[in-house]
């Protein structure tokens, strides 16, 4: 069963990778290294992100995924290496320019005051509001759109502390969408969501990766990653082990080496990756 279905079956998902319209590079990550406390958390990684592409950043806990994402989003500064966005070095962007172009959704994001959902999503417009300006119709339109896209219509008048973890995750994603970014970085966007909203959010992120936009999502669910991401980048102990089409990245060897787990993969109507058992401690 396992032998018969691996590799070839995962390739089924790759039919529409060719749909990616152009080869415009949005982000070039070059030799990115982040050291914290003398340890390289992100170790010399390089990859490109194309327009209209959704990239899944995968790897075990502590692989450096979130740190790498925060550096590419311009929130943390790398120890060395560079991030070039639209042919300009990220460090040359002003903080407002950067915030208008990039939205970053924090993993387990917190909300400190009991704002209503609607008002919280409105905060996403802050990068587009110069200091003394009023909120315009365009701002309201962007917020309405974000509320609909992230399926927050039914909870829009609730206060954030009364929401469940998954509902809050959707609201925080809507906050990022309200900023109408051309680059959307989401750190574990579906970890807290129920099945229906996992599919809805993944489809939303994939749809967002069009019109020259691009999306990077840190993922733990490999089945969803294979199904929705155009490409995957596999990280392990700070290094980039593999980057490319999902089937090429998620080989049984790669998964065994990185996660220390043997998997059963296959494809019925959708591709799936199911952990079988632990092999040993992962090799480095």
């Amino acid at each position, binding site marked *: 069963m396992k032998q018969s279905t691996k590799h070839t079956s995962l390739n089924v998902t790759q039919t529409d990778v060719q749909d990616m319209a152009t080869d415009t590079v949005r982000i070039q990550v070059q030799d990115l290294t982040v050291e914290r406390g003398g340890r390289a958390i992100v170790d010399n990684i390089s990859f490109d992100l194309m327009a209209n592409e959704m990239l899944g950043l995968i790897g075990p806990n502590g692989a450096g995924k979130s740190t790498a994402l925060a550096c590419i989003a311009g929130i943390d500064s790398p120890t060395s290496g560079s991030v070039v966005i639209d042919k300009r070095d990220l460090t040359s962007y002003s903080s407002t320019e950067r915030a208008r172009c990039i939205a970053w959704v924090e993993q387990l994001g917190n909300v400190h005051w009991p704002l209503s959902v609607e008002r919280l999503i409105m905060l996403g417009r802050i*990068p587009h509001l110069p200091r003394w300006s009023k909120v315009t119709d365009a701002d309201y339109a962007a917020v309405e759109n974000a509320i609909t896209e992230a399926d927050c219509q039914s909870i829009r008048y609730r206060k954030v502390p009364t929401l469940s973890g998954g509902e809050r995750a959707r609201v925080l994603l809507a906050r990022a969408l309200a900023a109408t970014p051309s680059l959307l970085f989401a750190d574990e966007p579906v970890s807290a969501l129920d099945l229906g909203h996992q599919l809805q959010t993944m489809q939303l992120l994939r749809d967002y990766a069009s019109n020259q936009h691009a999306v990077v999502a840190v993922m733990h669910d490999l089945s969803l990653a294979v199904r929705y991401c155009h490409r995957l980048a596999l990280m392990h102990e700070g290094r980039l082990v593999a980057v490319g089409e999902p089937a090429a990245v998620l080989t049984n060897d790669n998964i065994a080496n990185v996660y220390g787990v043997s998997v059963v993969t296959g494809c019925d109507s959708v591709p799936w990756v199911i952990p079988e058992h632990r092999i040993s401690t992962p090799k480095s």
Partner: protein
Amino acid sequence: MNDRLCLAILCVSVVFLGLVSLCLGEQWSSLHDTLVLPFADPESVSAVITREIRLPRTLIAIIAGISLGVSGAAMQGLLQNPLASPGLVGSASGAALGAVTALYFFAGTWHPQSVPLAGMIGALITTSLVYLLSGRDSSVSTLILAGVAINALAAACLSLLLNLAPSPFAIRELVLWTLGDIADRSLQDVWVMLPCTLLGWLLLTGTGRSLDALTLGERTASSMGINTRKLSWRVFIAVSLCVGAAVATTGMIGFIGLVIPHLLRPFAQYQPSRLLPLAALGGAAMLLAADIAVRLVSLYTDVPVPLKVGVLTALVGAPFFLVLILKSRRDYAR
């Protein structure tokens, strides 16, 4: 009730309480005597009383109230914590120390404004000390720790002065000053507190949206283009300046900076930027009301010594705060 309506109501209350404050002293005077006479007959006794005694008292209550209220709202927004108070920055105790030092060494003998001026200098010195201690690139928590440390140091120095005071009368004088009061101030006191206060207010305007962004945490705020380090310094210095000026003039008046933002937050729909103007006016209204209450107590009861307004705000504020916490525990439950 939305925040605009609440703002209008607060505006009306401040004007009303301001008028009451102008009409009230050792005895009530009519609205005509208070508002018309100072212009019609500037030399009359009633005009002089209004101008020299009641006007400064009213102005200082409004200015200090605004400073305390808005600073409390800004600090709570910056720290994303409803229990933060303007006292955390250390400049309040610095101002108290400076003023008490002046009172101790040359009370009234050198210059009538020596006490508030020394208070201002004390506030500025403690602010710079916090700056030096925590360094330019500090996070919010480092700033607050430095503020708390400086607070403790200033309190220790204050105790030392009390310890060394030559007579019980001197001790009484010093302690009473720190309790917080706005009686017997002059227009010169208003001029002394005004520059730093205005600078502080100016720095706080325009921080609203950044404080809103901080609702989502420091990292998400910085991803939204907010320079959180710069913001914390700006709020810190602004609060130090205007609270330092208030304390140097009035002594320690507690609980306004804590209770007022907490009380008005629901009317601002919990949004820090909308809370700032509400808390400013609310602070002014509360301090005016407390100062009026203190005068009413002297007017209608046999209490031998005039109550200090700082004592009253603490007496009312502390239980009130407890009730608010119990009531809003549900709102803040995570």
